[in-house]
C-alpha cells in the first residue's frame, strides 16, 4: 500500500466534493505526503458513483494524483483493485473515499460488493496540466 492512502470521508467533505465536475481537473493539492518535489502539481480527480457505475469509468491520472470516489447511490460501494493492491473500503451513501496513486496503482478496478461495476485507471503519458499553485 506504499504511496496509496485510502481514506473514507464523511458527508461534509462529500458535499464539498460534489461541487466538482466528474473527472475534471479539479484542484491542486497544496501538499501530498510522500510526493516530494511533485507535490504541488498533484491533481485531485473525481469519480462519481451513480446508478451502479463509475463516472468516468476510464480515468487518466498520474502517480501522486489523488482519486476521490463520491458515492451518490443509496447503497454502499467500494473501489477495489486486487491487481494493484488498493481498496477504498466501504464507501457509504453520500460519502467519499480517496486513494493517492503510486506508480503501480493503475489498471482495472471494481466494486467488491457489486462485481458488475468496473472501472479503470489509466496512467497518463505526461503529467496533466494543473491549475497554478496559489503561491505562483
Amino acid at each position: 500500500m506504499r504511496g496509496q492512502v485510502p481514506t473514507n470521508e464523511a458527508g461534509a467533505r462529500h458535499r464539498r466534493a460534489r461541487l466538482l465536475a466528474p473527472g475534471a481537473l479539479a484542484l491542486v493539492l497544496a501538499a501530498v505526503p510522500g510526493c516530494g518535489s511533485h507535490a504541488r502539481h498533484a491533481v485531485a480527480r473525481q469519480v462519481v458513483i451513480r446508478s451502479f457505475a463509475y463516472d468516468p469509468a476510464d480515468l487518466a491520472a498520474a502517480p501522486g494524483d489523488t482519486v476521490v470516489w463520491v458515492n451518490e447511490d443509496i447503497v454502499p460501494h467500494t473501489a477495489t483493485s486486487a491487481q494493484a493492491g488498493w481498496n477504498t473500503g466501504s464507501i457509504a451513501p453520500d460519502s467519499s473515499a480517496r486513494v493517492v496513486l503510486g506508480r503501480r496503482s493503475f489498471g482495472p478496478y471494481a466494486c467488491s460488493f457489486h462485481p458488475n461495476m468496473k472501472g479503470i485507471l489509466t496512467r497518463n503519458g505526461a503529467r496533466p496540466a494543473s491549475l497554478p499553485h496559489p503561491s505562483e
Partner: protein
Amino acid sequence: MRQRILVGRLTWAAVALCAAGLLGLGAGSASAAVHKSWKTKSSYGSTTSHMSGPVSDANIAAIVTTANKVDIQNAREAERISKNPKVLEFARRMTTDHTAANRQAMDLAKRLNLTPKPDALSRSLETSGTQTRSRMMSMTGASFDRAYIDNEVKLHESVLNVIDNTLLPNVQNADLKKLIQDTRPVIEEHLRMAKDVQSQLSTGSNSYQR
C-alpha cells in the same frame, strides 16, 4: 366512464400481478394470488374503490419500506440456513444494501413528514413474505438455496415491475420520486446478481459440497 373503470381495473390487475410475483416460490402460488386478488376485488364492493384508487405518496412509502423489509428478512434466513458461499455472499449483500436503502427511505419520509400508510399492495407483500419464508424455513441444503435464489429473482423482477408501473407513474413528491429512481438500479443490479447465482446453482459451478 366505462373506459375509466376499465383502466382502473387494468391498473389494479398489473399491481396484483406484481404482488403475486412477490408472493411465492413457484408459478402455482403466483397464479393463486392473482385469482385471490381479483376475487377480493370483485367480491367486496367496499374495498374496490380503495384498491383501484390512486396510490398516494404515503402508500408508496409503505410499499418501499415493506419491500426492503421483506428482502432483509429473507436474506437473514438465508444467512442462517445456507452453507453455500455464493448464496451466503448474495444474502449478506441483500441485507447490507436493503438496510441502507431502507434507511434512506425512512429518513426521507421523516424529513417530508410522511407517515407510511399500508395499502392492499404493501399488506400483500408483507403477508406473502411471511408465508414464503415459513415455507423456505422447512427446507435445507441445495433445496433451500434454489428456493431462496429463485424467489429472489422473482422478487426483484416484481419490484422492478411495481416501480415502473405503479410507483413512478403515481408518485407526487419530487424527492420521493428521486429516491425511487435511485432505487431502480439497485433492484436491477440485485436481479443480475441473483440470476448469476441461480445460473451457478443450476450448473453446479460453486464450491458448495452437497
